[in-house]
């Protein structure tokens, strides 16, 4: 049973979607930072994809050098603020903290990181310097975490950087995909604004790159191009009834949720199809939006799901019911969805579950049209752009790529790392030209 009351106002929405990792106050930061042991060769740092020097920034917070702590964080990760709250820390840094070996709660690294990054962002402290002017230009496609990280890295070196973005705001999935109880729109956008103000890269909005002409223009005007377009919209299931009303893809529905908040449409009886983290988020979000019943249907076993166990547990704690070995074979209804016919993948028996809203979280299509416009760009069998793992250069030497478009859909922290590495890769490529 779902316990959330349907939110009717912005305040009620905020209450249901209250942040999971609230900002620490100074006292809490002092107490929590005192817990860090300053380990040698720290396992937390090894577990961080961007290799933030965690014991250093925690010690800096503790000694009142919060500005220095934020510098330490951004030195490794250009999305330090977003990552602090959206990273699955339980399976990354915090999951590796030595305290867990003793069954003691780990140091709350994410929240300490947020404390430091909010300090410089909230106080708008000058933190970054543009590099010495280099008369070379780089174009970036996509203002998501990968693109932003790449832009920041290049600006600190000294390149001219223009970002082209389909949407009217930056930050990619941080503000239109990730769950609102992890990060607010304001928080997501402020960080990019903060970086942009200090590093001065350009972002051109409502500029979708999707024609050969545009690609040729970019190639003639820029010395290198970074592709950070992420992955695309929800893929079709190819079963009947997909066009009925109230059948929607998870990423599309979540994007609406991020924009429309309490005014987002949801049904009373919701089925979410899928077993990944996006499915878990969509199920949890449906519950928090006031659906009466939410069924999470997955074709394999609970253990087979790709989602992190803690995300499934969160959904269950919000009242979501898990339904396993259930393969959807038909979506039922006249105009609107009325139910789903499933097949039990163990005994092949068919059964129907009624619903008035269906969310498909069964995978996303890739930006293949765009990729096909670029000469010599190799796409692997899983439709990911092939790159050199050190330089993030694609098989077309002028192009570099990173983020979901390369890793197939991972976390913000991976996109931030790959974008930064690609920036360095571009510099090494261009400096010898």
């Amino acid at each position, binding site marked *: 049973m779902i316990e959330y009351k349907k939110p009717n106002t912005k305040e009620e929405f905020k209450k249901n979607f209250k942040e999971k990792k609230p900002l620490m106050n100074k006292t809490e930061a*002092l*107490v929590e930072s*005192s817990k860090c*042991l*300053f*380990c*040698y*060769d720290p*396992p937390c740092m090894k577990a961080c994809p961007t290799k933030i020097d965690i014991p250093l920034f925690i010690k800096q917070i*503790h000694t009142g050098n919060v500005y220095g702590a934020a510098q330490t964080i951004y030195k490794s990760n250009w999305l330090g603020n977003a990552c602090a709250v959206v990273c699955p820390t339980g399976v990354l840094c915090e999951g590796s903290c*030595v*305290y867990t*070996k*003793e069954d003691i709660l780990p140091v709350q690294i994410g929240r300490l990181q947020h404390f430091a990054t909010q300090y410089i962002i909230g106080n708008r402290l000058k933190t970054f310097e543009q590099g010495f002017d280099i008369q070379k230009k780089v174009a970036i496609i996509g203002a998501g975490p990968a693109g932003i990280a790449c832009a920041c890295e290049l600006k600190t070196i000294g390149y001219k950087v223009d970002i082209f973005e389909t949407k009217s705001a930056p930050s990619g999935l941080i503000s239109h995909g990730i769950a609102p109880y992890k990060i607010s729109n304001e928080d997501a956008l402020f960080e990019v604004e903060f970086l942009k103000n200090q590093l001065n890269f350009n972002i051109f909005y409502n500029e979708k790159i999707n024609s050969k002409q545009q690609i040729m223009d970019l190639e003639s005007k820029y010395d290198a191009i970074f592709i950070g377009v992420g992955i695309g919209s929800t893929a079709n299931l190819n079963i009947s009834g997909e066009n009925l009303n109230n059948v929607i893809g998870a990423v599309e529905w979540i994007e609406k949720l991020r924009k429309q908040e309490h005014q987002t449409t949801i049904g009373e009886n919701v089925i979410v199809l899928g077993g990944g983290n996006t499915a878990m988020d969509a199920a949890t979000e449906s519950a928090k939006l006031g659906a009466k019943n939410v069924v999470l249907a997955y074709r394999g076993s609970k253990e087979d799901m790709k989602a992190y166990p803690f995300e499934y547990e969160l959904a269950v704690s919000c009242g979501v019911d898990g339904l396993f070995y259930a393969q959807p074979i038909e979506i039922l209804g006249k105009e609107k969805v009325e139910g789903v016919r499933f097949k039990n993948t163990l005994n092949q028996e068919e059964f129907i579950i009624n619903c008035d809203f269906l969310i498909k979280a069964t995978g996303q299509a890739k930006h293949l049209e765009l990729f096909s416009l670029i000469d010599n760009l190799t796409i692997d069998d899983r439709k990911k752009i092939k790159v050199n793992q050190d330089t993030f250069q694609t098989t077309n030497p002028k192009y570099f790529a990173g983020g979901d478009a390369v890793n197939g859909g991972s976390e913000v922290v991976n996109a931030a790392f790959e974008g930064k590495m690609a920036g360095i890769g571009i510099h090494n490529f261009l400096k010898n030209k």
Partner: protein
Amino acid sequence: MIDISVNFAGIKAPNPFWLASAPPTNSGYQIMKAFDAGWGGAVWKTLGLPTINVSSRYGSINYRDTRMAGFSNIELISDRPLEDNLREMQEVKKYYPNHAVIASLMVDTRQEWETIIKEVQDAGADGIELNFGCPHGMCERGMGSAVGQEPEVLKTIVGWVMAAAKIPVITKLSPNISHITDPGLAAVQGGTNAISLINTVKSIVGIDLDTFAPYPIVDGSGTNGGYCGPAVKPIALHMLKELAQHRQINKVPICGIGGIETWRDVVEFILLGATSVQVCTAVMHYGFGIVREMEAGLKGFMEQRSFDTIYDFAGRALPKVTEWKNLNLKYSVKANIDREKCIGCQLCYIACDDGAHQAIKLSENSEDRIPSVIEDNCVGCNLCSLVCPVENCISMQRKDDKSEHLTWDMLTQKNEIPNTFNDERAGGKGHHVPSVEEAWNKRENI
């Protein structure tokens, strides 16, 4: 039957937990509250000549998330009218006849000492404590630590007091001196009935990084303060031991003061020879209620060891505190890491490698974060076991066969003091460290 009552130089109290002369004993109101909470005695905030205090009086040292690990003050003796203090003292004694009320005094001339002694005796004080300790303010007027640092002056004043006093006299010593036995002996020679120590340590607890003024800041400047609280306990324990082992001084009872907060602290002071203790900072931090923990802990300790009174174990640590030259050079312990308990922080590794004797190594397998001890190199210094954050994870295990006992003193007497470096445990002999050249060649990416 456990009996923790004390008779300290003739001053009787239901227990050895006394409040030190300080803000917690400013008034009758506070002292009555303290007696109700369980304190056995109280040394009234020092009475003497009129003073004026400054505003902004305390500073402290915080360690990690611990507040007031060390505490500093620049307050003077009581600034309340003497007649108010004397009247309240008389009233408190009336309501609490079995608790110890001791008047702490600090004046200048012999005449002043004689007058004030008579006044507190008339008010019913059970004893007198002479404050020769304050290292700030009063010493600039020739009192407090100015006396405590001059054994001859101290002896003279103690002599004046003994001639006038009809109740027991405790002399409170300042730690701001090289040899605590000098003022200790002077006090005994002057005829004191008992000694208490330590008063506060002359100190500067910190500097404000915006104004460059020392804490506590009084309108832009500061002065040295008196340091106390948990941080000074080791200094107090050492000075207590110096007096308690001194044959002429240890004829009088000693009251231990300095950083006492828990029952363990109390037991340690008693084991080193104190037969009552005084507390200030812990009460200023947590209130009178902390005495509950002290009393329960002390009684529990006594019960476990079958001690009936504190006199059954007072001074029992003294024979174990000896000089370095009497320590057994053949005794050998080595570190042992419990692989079950280790959480892989590798603090022991880096502490030993950078700060000690290069006797801990990391596993060759980078998945295995548990370090191991290189026994040949381990000198048994304890450092790793001190830094290890896990309780009882690194233990120091005895490795010699207990058959030999050899001390520096024995070598001296046998005229066998080595004239070459021959410690098997030291670098270059049994202890293997890379040579400078090897280390230079091994440097990577620096």
